[in-house]
């Protein structure tokens, strides 16, 4: 009772120091760089473990440089073929985006259509597209059109589904506002539905974009005639036993895929970062 001594004061908790600009850069880039180095080391280690006659499967950095990236003609070929691949991907998406958007709007307009169409959309998604490529070939030949169609099939699914999801999540109160002004269904769709659904649609477009390049490359694996893209180069380099060139084509394919994804991300951020936040 007589002990009037105050309990010892807690040591003041120091404020955490704000991160320096350099610290922020390191924080952002160090983790992926470290992981990337670890993966490269794993690659080198696996390669070293291979018997010599199978090491062609995993070309060394030096081999890649000497046999592929140091040669201007390889660069020219890669550029040309990338252009072919990207035009197949773009043409396919130019098909699937408008049709997908139309379908999404139709399904939103009529519940009956949604009930009718949605199961088939899911079914389409579950068809192994690779398995029907021979059929497409037989029906449409070896030109540009069948490849475009394959890309369209790869990229189609996520467009009407994400748009429908976005349209359906339009705030009821916003619909009420438009109804109070006797706005038509089209005005409501244009001024409220589309802007509100756009972020969801763009999430779908980013998924589609990644699949578009994959679809374009896959479509070419089956079409070796004519001026081809990167997919054809992958097969040709296997036949010619030029694995360094195959790796070069693989790297460029990935870069292409990533850049299409980044393009849609950039576009999405340009359009809605200020009200919806960045992705």
């Amino acid at each position, binding site marked *: 009772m007589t002990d009037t001594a105050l309990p010892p004061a807690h040591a003041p908790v120091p404020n955490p120091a704000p991160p320096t600009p350099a610290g922020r850069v390191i924080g952002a880039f160090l983790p992926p760089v470290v992981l990337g180095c670890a993966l490269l080391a794993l690659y080198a280690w696996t390669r070293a473990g291979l018997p010599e006659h199978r090491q062609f499967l995993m070309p060394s950095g030096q081999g890649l440089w000497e046999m592929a990236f140091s040669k201007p003609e390889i660069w020219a070929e890669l550029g040309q073929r990338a252009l072919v691949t990207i035009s197949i991907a773009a043409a396919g998406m130019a098909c699937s985006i408008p049709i997908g958007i139309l379908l999404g709007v139709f399904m939103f307009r009529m519940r009956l259509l949604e009930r009718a169409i949605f199961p088939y959309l899911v079914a389409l998604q579950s068809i192994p597209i690779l398995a029907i490529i021979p059929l497409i070939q037989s029906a449409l030949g070896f030109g540009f059109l069948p490849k475009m169609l394959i890309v369209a099939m790869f990229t189609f699914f996520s467009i009407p589904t994400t748009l429908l999801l976005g349209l359906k999540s339009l705030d009821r109160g916003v619909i*009420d*506002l438009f109804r109070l*002004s006797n706005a038509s269904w089209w005005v409501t769709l244009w*001024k409220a539905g589309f802007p509100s659904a756009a972020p969801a649609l763009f999430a779908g477009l980013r998924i589609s974009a990644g699949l578009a390049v994959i679809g374009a490359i896959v479509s070419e694996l089956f079409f070796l005639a004519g001026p081809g893209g990167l997919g054809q180069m992958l097969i040709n380099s296997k036949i010619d036993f030029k694995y360094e060139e195959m790796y070069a084509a693989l790297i460029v394919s990935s870069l292409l895929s990533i850049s299409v994804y980044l393009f849609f991300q950039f576009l999405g951020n340009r359009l809605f970062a*200020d009200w*919806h936040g960045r992705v």
Partner: protein
Amino acid sequence: MTQTRPAEPGHRGVYRLSPDRAPDPRPVALRFEDLSMTYPDGTEALTGIDLSIAAGEFVSIIGPSGCGKSTLARIASGLLPQTGGTVRIDRDHLAFTFQEATLLPWRRVLGNVELMMELRGVPAAERKRKALEQLDLVGLKGFEDRFPRALSGGMKMRASLARSFALDPTVFLFDEPFGALDEINRERLIEELSALHRAKGFTGFFITHSIPEAVYLSSRVVVMGARPGRIEAEYAIDLPQPRNAELRFDPAFTEGCAEISHCLRGLMQPDERTS
């Protein structure tokens, strides 16, 4: 506690109105006649609603949750068709403010305030002029280029009110517009709305579950009971105008609130009363 007193000239305070009083001679802005609403699942939301609101009057509807007061506002606005009875209202000059601010997140504040005018075909220049005027009126001057997500809850509701005021409504419906706000913001907005009502003279139809809010704003408070929703009592709020924050501490105000509170408690189901 509940006492029926005739309207005496010069009497100040809150008093219960007799159901068979003489009709209000002023022109009617909003009238429900034997209105009823039954949902398709058989729920009886409203029954036998007879209520007449004179032009320029500010009437609050108060009642326990689930008594159909929001339904009543939606029917008045035309968003929900009633299943029985009639509504008389001029919907061409109607504004409706919801519980939520309901701003379009992809439009800046100015674009949001212009929205309803835009949908009604007001020319762009006039739209902008009016929108800026209303923003000034609700204290959002300088915020016209912000996106809604950069605004606080109170500011969002101010923008929502500006959007409604831009329509120059003759009848203004409110469905618990300040329910989600903190006390200080709510009181300030109530004071401002009361002043705006005096200045503009619109007819106010205000749904709320807050007794002081209803008493502060209104010239009449209608108490509703639940299951099915019906009108239980009406109170005249004969308190001086213009009203200001000090009114809340006036004995006439607090006694009036207490009387309405007792009336509401009397309507509660026994299980609700104990909780």
